[in-house]
Structure formats: structure tokens, C-alpha cells
């Protein structure tokens, strides 16, 4: 029974998949622009967890490859958050709302 509980690679991947799906849920079902962004951040964080899990469990050719990829991914998601929040504020100034259902000027 205890053997099942020790974290193996599939268990970590399942947790990461759950986190990714929750992020997708937030991005798809929220109507607030900031929370769509938070959902995307959560999906990126789940991808980071995958990088670290594979780095931990399978010996890569170079001992620090997974950590490097995770660090770069964190930096890129920080840049994405900055630009996304700036866009939310810019659009808010124009429309006076953060509800994405009312951003209908770009509809085709």
C-alpha cells in the first residue's frame, strides 16, 4: 500500500496534467480577462513541473538541462504576464470593463 504512495514519474505527470486541465478550465470558463491570463500562467507552470519531473527521473545527457529549460520558461512566462496585464489595462481604459464578453469590436 505504501509503495503506491511514493511518487513515481506517472504520478507526478498526473498531478501536472490535473494542474494543466484546471488552468485550461480557468482560461475557458472565466469571463474576467485577468483570470484568463492566470489560467494560461497555470498551464505554463504545469509544463514547468513536467520539465522538472522528467529531469529528476530520467538522467539527461547533461545534469542541468531540465533546470535550465525550467528557468528560461519561467522568465518567458514573466514577460508574457507583464505584456498581458498591460494589454488588460489598455483595453480597460477603452471599454471600462474587464469582462471579455463585452470586447466585441474584434469579432469577425
Amino acid at each position, binding site marked *: 500500500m505504501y509503495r503506491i504512495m*511514493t511518487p513515481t514519474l506517472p504520478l507526478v505527470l498526473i498531478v501536472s496534467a490535473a494542474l494543466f486541465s484546471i488552468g485550461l478550465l480557468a482560461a475557458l*470558463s472565466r469571463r474576467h480577462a485577468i483570470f484568463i491570463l492566470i489560467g494560461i500562467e497555470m498551464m505554463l507552470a504545469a509544463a514547468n513541473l513536467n520539465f522538472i519531473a522528467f529531469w529528476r527521473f530520467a538522467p539527461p545527457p547533461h545534469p542541468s538541462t531540465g533546470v535550465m529549460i525550467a528557468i528560461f520558461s*519561467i522568465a518567458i512566462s514573466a514577460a508574457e504576464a507583464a505584456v498581458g496585464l498591460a494589454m488588460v489595462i489598455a483595453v480597460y481604459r477603452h471599454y471600462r*470593463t474587464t469582462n471579455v464578453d463585452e470586447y466585441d469590436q474584434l469579432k469577425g
Partner: protein
Amino acid sequence: MSGVAFILISILTLAAALATATLPNLMHAAFCFVLALLGLASFFFLLGAEFVGLALVFIYIGAVAVLIVFTILLTRRDSKEHHGVNWSGVLIAFAVFVGLIWAVLKTQSLSIVPPHIRALTVRQIGQTLMTGYVWPLQCVGLLLTAALIGALVLVMEEKK
């Protein structure tokens, strides 16, 4: 890596993430996001990537979460979300979850015995960043600068 810590951390992380995705009050949801990130950082600690966990705490909680809270406060006019469950979103997320679980459980080669934990010091990480990963590092620096300038330009008032 102990199993009890793994179970506790994964329950905490997933519950906080679910609260972030569903709570109607935006500030509560933002704080639950911080909690989920803390859980994720402790996951990294558990897996032996201490530096990445610390970077996650510094960058996500120290910068991104604060930025998100600031944006919520700046756009506070409709701070409560008019709610109605979007069932298609729930359905798609659940389908993706089931698909991912199926793929993970189907793959036989994932059942690897974890090798001995390798101590990866910050010194080693710094040396690797400065030797083998110099060009990606410079590109990320350029990207962050461009993103900062772009964000500033986006929110600048248009002078008539």
C-alpha cells in the same frame, strides 16, 4: 521524496488551483493562485530542484502575483464576476484531462526507477548559464527588455 509529503502537497496545490478557477470573488481567487504557486514551488523542492523552486517563488509570487493584484485593484469597477457556469469550458477541460491521463497511463516506458538525487548547486547552475547557455540567456534578457518597453508603450496615455 516521501509519499505523504507528495500527497499533501498535490492536494494543496490542486485544491488551491481549483479555487482559483472557480471562486467568484476576484481577490480571493488571486490569493488562492498564490497558494497554488507555493504548492508548486514545494513540489520543485520535493523533486530536488531547489533553485527553480526559489526562482518560482521570487518571480511568480514576488512579481507576477503582485502585478495581478495591482491590476485587479486598478480595474475594480466590476470586481464581482457575474456568474454563470460555462459548461463547454468544463467539458473541454475534462476531456483534455482524461486524454492526458490516458496517455500517461498507456505509456509503458514511464515507469522508471528514479536515479540517485544529484546535488545541483547554484554554482553549477551559474557556470552552466554562463558557458553553455550564454546565447539563450542573452535572448531572454532581450525578450524581457522588449516586453517591459512594450508594456510601457501599451499603457502610455495617448497625448492629443
